[in-house]
């Protein structure tokens, strides 16, 4: 407990209890507060002088954290750019070479459709860091737009090419197993019926009556009819300037206007028209002129492979359409 203070009062010659009050109290309190304030100010000054603003400290700490996150974004941009460049290189140097098309010019690559949304970038001029990345991303999205268009174009080209490749006469119209003999004569030869030299414009495959005849490429049956010379004959229009003819058939398996696939049975070997024995007369025409069909089938294709191709042809589907 606080002890009672006394002060000697010479007037009364007595020790009287004395309390801190009034002016004295005020003075004491003021001294205390003043001292504290002076010390506080000194401390404050020293702090600001040596450490700096507290807000500044906090802000720069936050800034460092934010910039670290920003760097992750920058890395992503960099990776995306590399990824895109890789795709563009594949497009230009692999696909366009294979597809016989020249690489897209840098102008086309650069000039895409502008960013979809116009953004107010004026406040960004103060922050070159953000500004730079922003325009980089806009640039990327432009280029990606061009790349998307280019890949679509490539896809269409590939589809066209694959149709073209599938349409090209490329196999033998009769299976090797059922083939008795192949007359390799193309050009002038002695005609067995007319007994004169005549231009023979196709290849003759000798095979038994009823042997299936396969379409040698995808195409549209342009004609199915019976002529005096050809006998029962099928014309297939393969497009891309190619046509094939299958003559002296005994029967048809297709109708005019029908679409056929390579390896599909279109008819059967026979002995109709100007023919002395059952055989298939096969012609390949390019731009309306007969050319040697021997160039349009792989002779080194083994029977197993051939059967596999026929198998594919017999499945009535159009995977490329």
């Amino acid at each position, binding site marked *: 407990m606080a*002890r*009672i203070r*006394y*002060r*000697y*009062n*010479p007037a009364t010659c007595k020790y009287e209890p*004395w309390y801190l009050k009034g002016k004295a109290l005020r003075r004491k309190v003021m001294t205390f*507060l003043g*001292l*504290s*304030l002076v*010390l*506080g*100010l000194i401390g*404050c000054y020293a*702090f*600001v002088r040596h450490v700096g*603003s507290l*807000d*500044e400290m906090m*802000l720069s700490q936050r*800034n460092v954290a*934010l910039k670290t996150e920003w760097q992750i*974004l920058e890395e992503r941009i960099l990776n*995306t750019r590399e990824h*895109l460049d890789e*795709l563009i290189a594949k497009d230009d*140097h692999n*696909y366009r*070479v*294979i*597809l*016989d098309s*020249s690489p897209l010019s840098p102008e086309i690559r650069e000039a895409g459709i502008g960013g979809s949304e116009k*953004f107010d970038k004026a*406040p*960004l001029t*103060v922050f070159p860091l*953000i500004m730079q*990345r*922003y325009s980089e*991303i806009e640039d*990327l*999205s432009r280029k990606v737009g061009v790349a998307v268009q280019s*890949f679509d174009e*490539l*896809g269409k080209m*590939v589809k066209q*090419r694959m149709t073209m*490749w*599938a349409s090209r006469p490329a196999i033998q119209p009769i299976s090797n197993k059922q083939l008795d003999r192949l007359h390799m004569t193309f050009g002038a030869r002695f005609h067995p019926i007319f007994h004169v030299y005549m231009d023979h414009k196709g290849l003759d495959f000798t095979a038994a009556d009823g042997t299936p005849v396969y379409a040698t490429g995808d195409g549209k049956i342009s004609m199915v009819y019976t002529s005096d010379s050809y006998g029962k004959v099928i014309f297939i229009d393969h497009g891309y300037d190619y046509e094939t003819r299958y003559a002296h058939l005994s029967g048809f398996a297709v109708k005019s206007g029908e679409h056929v696939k390579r390896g599909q049975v279109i008819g059967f070997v026979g002995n109709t028209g100007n023919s002395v024995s059952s055989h298939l007369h096969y012609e390949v025409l*390019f731009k309306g002129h007969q*050319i040697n069909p021997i*160039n349009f089938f792989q002779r080194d*294709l083994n029977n197993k*492979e051939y059967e*596999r*191709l026929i198998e*594919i042809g017999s499945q009535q589907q159009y995977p490329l359409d």
Partner: protein
Amino acid sequence: MSKFSYYYNPETCHYERAKLSPGDIIVYTIGLMLMSVACFAGLIFLYNFLLETDTEKKLRAENRAILQYKPILETKLALIENTLAELDEQDKVLYTQLFNTTPPSAPAAKNSFSQEMVLLADAVEFRSLLDKLDTKTTQLVDRARYVNGVFGEDIHIDQEALDVLMVMPAIQPLQDVVLDHFASGFGNRINPFHKGTYHHDGVDYAAPRGTVVVATGNGTVTAVKRSELQAVYGNYVEISHGHGFITRYAHLEEITIKAGQKISKGMPVGTVGSSGGSVAPHLHYEIIRDGDHVDPVLYMVENLTSQAYSALKAKSKKQNQSLD
């Protein structure tokens, strides 16, 4: 009133002068300190609250800008990344359609350190192999010398073997070959037209039209054929190098040499085209040795580092679709 304070001491029954005790001083000092700290805190707070330095302004604005634009950029970037992922899929489909094989898987993330280690490891193995070979060769030569010495003959190098080495078509048939150009190797491949497997007698280099094709060895041009037919070789050149070596360069666009002409290694013979039975501008290159088709990659040993050669060989082994 006197200035001095007194305390009444009940034990001595006296009034005693009050002295400033150390406890009082400590209490006062602690109080002062606490108050000072309170003042300090208040002042700092006031200072921060009222005053904003330029640095602060800048930092605050920058932080705000980052916070504002980061999500925007991230959204845009995510969109781009998604599109690229879609393009990757399209790329895979295109590759499969064009080459009838799955595309090579993307190389694992580059790690230069581990790559270096692999290289070093490779080099160690290679060096030890070389050392072994060297020892063996020295031993063999010594043995041969000894045997020859026994029979009283001088050792000599087989001139014909040397000649064969000289005429061997040992370079690649394209100038500035990029590994990417190598499209299909020797052996059973898929025919692009009918998709059946057949024996591909040469190698295919897919290159833009007009790329210069060069002779792979010294020799004489034995055939220059031009053909409009969209089948087989199209425009092609055949060069006989002697010692049973013949090379063929097919599907050319232009041919710049004549039959019978003597030709040296590296000389241009024509340009890449898509003539004959070809689905893309490419060079079909064959080596015929003593009448048989051989794998040309086995002969492409000149001007290639062992690494490049391994890469080429690996690529040539890929069972894909040929271009003719």
